[in-house]
């Protein structure tokens, strides 16, 4: 866009228009972020170009109108002139807007083409939306994890939680596991969803894109500056749409490699232990942490759920009845409701742990337990 209007010109235009300099606007949280990619900066520039142009048009149009309102009023003793049309003027105010629009269309086309160019990406992250958290899969490295709203934020955001949210840093914009990417790398994002449509959005990258169940959308980014960038789900996806943030951590290449190595190792460890016998205490401890990340958003921290949509687990016929029903609803979910099939989302240890936890906590005390090995067999 700088071919069309240079930055200096933009600043001059702003001064002419009597507006605050763009940079100052951004600092006060009034304006769009410039972001940390070339695309995001191009988009920002386009936004400013459009904004400045419409401001100027507005000043002219409203200026003329106000001048007329002041001078052409009955109380000033003017007599109405009776002209009805003027072809010259009508042509002028048809042609000029067309020219202005062309001046937007050209750079916009260029940016769009650039944005759609998914060639030559160096790595791929598959992002899957779930009600209401994100799952990231690093395709080349072959590991993945869920990322949900951090639990202290989740507590604070409950109605009548009694917690002063203004004391919480980055309220609602914090997750348990941020998605980590290396800087200066062209990364492809594949976006899809497991249930309803979500949209993955980090303003600093300059774009958002819908995650649509059954289809895969792709987009790319190349971040130039390390940092932590925060965004949110941007497509209404149900009750907790407001509570599925995205936190993206851009780090130098080496740091990324180290992180990826650690992640892989962690995952291998977490999945291990399927074969061994787990004690009740171990399962309960692990189960509680699984419950607070995977289940609370619907069934609530105290297990009371939010009837009639989300049933209470406390005293529930399934959570206190035959354990096989309990296992099957957690593994397969419930068709036609929002209860997800966790068989695809959690490993056998986690499933065993959370089921054991639900039966012996949250006000339930069935007393039985299930071993990870049994879960694996059931799958």
């Amino acid at each position, binding site marked *: 866009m700088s071919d069309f209007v240079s930055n200096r010109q933009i600043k001059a235009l702003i001064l002419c228009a009597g507006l605050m300099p763009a940079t100052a606007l951004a600092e006060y949280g009034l304006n769009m972020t410039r972001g940390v990619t070339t695309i995001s900066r191009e988009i920002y520039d386009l936004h400013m170009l459009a904004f400045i142009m419409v401001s100027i048009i507005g000043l002219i149009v409203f200026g003329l109108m106000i001048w*007329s309102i002041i001078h052409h009023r009955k109380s000033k003793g003017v007599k109405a002139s009776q002209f009805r049309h003027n072809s010259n003027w009508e042509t002028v*105010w*048809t042609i000029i807007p067309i020219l202005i629009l062309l001046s937007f269309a050209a750079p916009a086309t260029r940016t769009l083409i650039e*944005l759609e160019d998914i060639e030559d990406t160096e790595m791929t992250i598959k992002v899957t939306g779930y009600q209401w958290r994100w799952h990231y899969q690093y395709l080349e490295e072959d590991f993945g994890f869920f990322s949900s709203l951090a639990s202290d934020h989740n507590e604070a955001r409950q*109605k009548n939680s009694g917690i002063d949210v203004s004391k919480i840093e980055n309220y609602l914009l914090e997750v348990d596991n941020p998605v980590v990417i290396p800087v200066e790398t062209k990364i492809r994002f594949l976006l899809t969803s497991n249930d309803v449509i979500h949209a993955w959005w980090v303003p600093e990258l300059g774009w958002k894109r819908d995650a*649509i169940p059954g*289809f895969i959308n792709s987009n790319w980014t190349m971040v130039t500056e390390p940092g932590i960038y925060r965004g949110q789900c941007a497509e209404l996806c149900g009750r907790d749409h*407001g509570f599925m943030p995205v936190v993206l951590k851009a780090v130098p290449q080496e740091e990324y490699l180290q992180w990826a190595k650690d992640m892989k190792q962690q995952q291998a460890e977490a999945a291990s232990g399927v074969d061994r016998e787990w004690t009740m205490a171990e399962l309960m401890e692990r189960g509680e942490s699984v419950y607070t990340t995977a289940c609370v958003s619907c069934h609530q921290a105290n297990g009371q759920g939010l009837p009639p949509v989300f049933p209470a687990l406390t005293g529930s016929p399934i959570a206190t009845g035959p354990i096989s029903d309990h296992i099957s609803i957690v593994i397969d979910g419930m068709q036609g409701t929002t209860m997800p099939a966790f068989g695809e989302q959690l490993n056998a240890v986690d499933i065993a742990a959370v089921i054991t936890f639900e039966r012996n906590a949250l006000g339930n005390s069935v007393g039985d337990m299930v071993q990870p090995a049994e879960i694996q067999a059931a799958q």
Partner: protein
Amino acid sequence: MSEAVLNGVEHQHDHHPTGIKRWLFTTNHKDIGTLYLCFSLLMFFIGGAMALVIRAELFSPGIQYVDPQFFNSMTTMHALIMVFGVVMPGTVGFANWMLPMMIGAPDMALPRMNNWSFWILPFAFTLLLMTLLLPGGGPAGGWTMYPPLMLQTEHALPFVIFAVHFMGVSSVMGAINIVATILNMRAPGMKLLDMPLFVWTWLVTAFLLIGSIPVLAGAVTMLLTDKFFGTSFFDAAGGGDPVLFQHVFWFFGHPEVYILILPAFGVVSQIIPTFARKPLFGYVSMVYATCSIALLSFIVWAHHMFTVGMPLAAELFFMYATMSIAVPTGVKIFNWIATMWRGEMTFETPMLFAVAFVILFTIGGFSGLMLGIAPVDFQYHDTYFVVAHFHYVLVSGAIFSMMAGAYYWLPKWTGYMYDEKLGKLHFWLSVVSVNLLFFPQHFLGLAGMPRRIPDYSTQFSEWNAISSVGGFVFGFSQLILVWVIIKSARGHGEKATAQVWEGANGLEWTLSSPPPYHSFEVPPKISRS
């Protein structure tokens, strides 16, 4: 059965049932117009009360009053009510009252059907509002009803879908009636290009309605069968696509927004010449602009879906088409200003609202244009920037023009002038508070606040608080309007003359205020200047 075969010789008395039956059975365009307008006003307060629930919850971060699910259903119901229950019936009410008078007809072309178009609405909205009482609550998938989310709706789903079908029946019948009236009931000698602009805008709007409402009906029918009859329109597992719904919905939805605004353009095009005491500038280009806006409106729908991942060519096409709508709309704005230019203006309440309309609608149009630039929309989409855009064009656009029209024609309808002092108070309170309400939402959107969320990060606190204060002031200011209407309807005020306004021109101003029961029993003579 016919009440009267009217002709120039025999004089007919207005014989019609009185009391409640008058309103239930009426075939009179003025009675039906009044019904529409009262219904619209009632719905405005219901939909507005829901907006105030939203604004109250958003006043500060943290969840204070409502459950997130209920918040979403407030957003959904607020929009459905405002769009289908306030602006559409309201402008149809104006059309009912004014079209026959403006074209020199005794009534609408199909008066019994006219009654039916209205008397569907209370039932349709009962069906819609009932959902709030169902277990699981009202619909909460947004007024756009995107699947698969909408298909997760509990018991409310069929109620909403049938309510939309029901309203659609009403709109299509109303639109057919308006087309037939305009094309068939004009006074002898009145050519299409002699018609007042309000009539023109309604003619075009009626075509938009007939062309787009059935598509909405089809879209929600597909939702219904996907949910209950095993079809897979919107399910990839069966070969469908959730995005198909969005295409179909917006094929309706974008023409719909012009259905909301074109009559508003018409109202303003009547008012500005009156108070500038000057003929409308560029009448013919206004007509052409209206028609081109309508035609373009059918090929821009996907600008609501730039982020769904369409092929590049489609994105480019919809971007260019969208931007081009700014040209005919600009013609309208410039023509209004040229009408004011070197006029002899006075600023009674209708004119104040009309002037505010031109300015604030233009601001909304500017943000619309910015949204139309596809790559930038990747940032704006589904943020409060969009919310700011459409409330500028809807509230300070469509609603303001309806306010202007109400003040403008109230003396004609009731026979008494409204209270000018109260009117001015209403205007100033509204115009200040509406900006307080919606201008900060631009900042919120640009700073990254998504729409349809009940709670937000603390960095957005200040502007949300300001917006909420503006919302409450704006909402409660509207009670003044109710008071003004009641006063005028009950005969408190100066008696209005037939012409009412010094600069008013047109057939409707040749009839007494209030006009006779059958507006023109004898077709008026059309004199062309």
